[in-house]
């Protein structure tokens, strides 16, 4: 994105919806309603939302729910999903045991 973003811009009130209980992030069991509420709490980027709610921070690291989270956030903010930058993917590629990650030649 990297555009100047005024966090006081009015995005309207949070309006409860019938499907707010739907689980979107399966690893961390975060619902659609929680994601929508977080946007109204000021979490306007995927990175902030991850840090605030843990959505996409579980075992799959968002590989399953990222697109859905992005779409829900974009709708709440009134922007296109393409305008929201994806959150950063980080090592390791798959969850890795400490004994394997810590193993190097001769140690």
């Amino acid at each position, binding site marked *: *994105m990297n555009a100047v973003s005024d966090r006081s811009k009015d995005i309207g009130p949070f309006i409860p919806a019938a499907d707010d209980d739907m689980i979107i992030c399966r690893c961390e069991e975060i619902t659609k309603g929680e994601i929508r509420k977080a946007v109204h709490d000021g979490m306007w*980027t995927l990175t902030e939302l991850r840090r605030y709610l843990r959505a996409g921070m579980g075992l799959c690291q968002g590989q399953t729910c990222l697109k859905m989270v992005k779409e829900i956030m974009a709708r709440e903010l009134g922007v296109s999903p393409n305008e929201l930058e994806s959150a950063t993917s980080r090592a390791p590629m798959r969850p890795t045991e400490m004994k394997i990650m810590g193993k190097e030649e001769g140690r």
Partner: protein
Amino acid sequence: MNNKADVVIVGGGIIGCATAYYLTKRGKSVIVLEVSDNIGNGGSSRNGGGVRQSGRDPRELPLAMYGIKNLWPTLSEELESDCEYHKEGNLRLGKTEKHMQILQGLTDRAVACGLDVKMIKAKEVKEINPYLSDEVIGASWCPTDGHANPMKTTLAFYRKARMQGAHFITGEKVKTLKKVKGRLKKVVTSANVYEADYVLVAAGYDSRDILATVGIDIPMHKELMECLVTEAEPHMFNQMLGTAEADFYGHQSNHGSFVFGGSSGLELDNSDAGTTNAPGSSSITASCICRGIMKYFPDLQDAKIVRTWAGYIDICKDGVPVLGFVDEVPGLVVACAFTGHGFGIAPAVGEQLAMLIIDGKTTVDISKLRYDRFKAKI
């Protein structure tokens, strides 16, 4: 929008967000300018979550003790957002006689400052944390230390400050500070000019370039520090942990995951994979932290790492932050060079800086952290 406010804060990290919260709580108008797209994108969301007094320099210890006594216990309630604060002690572990000497030195200095910290033997360490390796022969123990969730705490301050009317702008890069008739008045960004009676610069290492535009230079450098997090594990312990040799530090979060931080020891001279505001993990550090952890917690060898990340620490030449007014530039308040100790003292720093700006004085003595302490060697 209105580009004028009582206070413009440069830096949307936990220091900027906390100060914005305490200022707006007392009725001041505040604009916060954050260079990245995300609030709390520097050390605020990349640290290990320690809320400690032990191991602190006597000059900053009063702030740490004040925050833990007066602000942290009720912070989640005040911000209406769970900061996951635990005040259940800090163990700094030792395995050799040399380790114990290091710990004794740290303990003696903290006791001299009036902190409740003591040396304990292996048996007592095991009673506090039964999961530790039998190789641990002792530890320093500070029962009033603890940890919290740095990401949630930073965003909780942001959320509440925003609700109180603080105006946050992200993606806004500050180019220069400008004086008008001898007093700092304007903050110029790529696209806008902001005006305020006071300007707080709390932008981590980036504060350096910004302060240079009004002739101020704080002696500091930046250093990479890395963290990792495991999948959720059954609950084991609530203490904050560290070691005499700083092999690693960390805690188990409410979520069940373990968050551990550490370094490879080569950071200062190795090439840095990161870019501005996006520090990169090195390929050797997470493995190194894992080896450090397994030496103390053999049971964690099967815990899966799900994520690693890195952050920059703004390390001050003399190891403590630079806080407060700067005589050379009336209207300027600085809060940077936190040297990796920023998170735990952030609520106290925010509250005291709001006091400094509104009342002209603080209730906690921060005079030893002033900018004018730096002198040439002769």
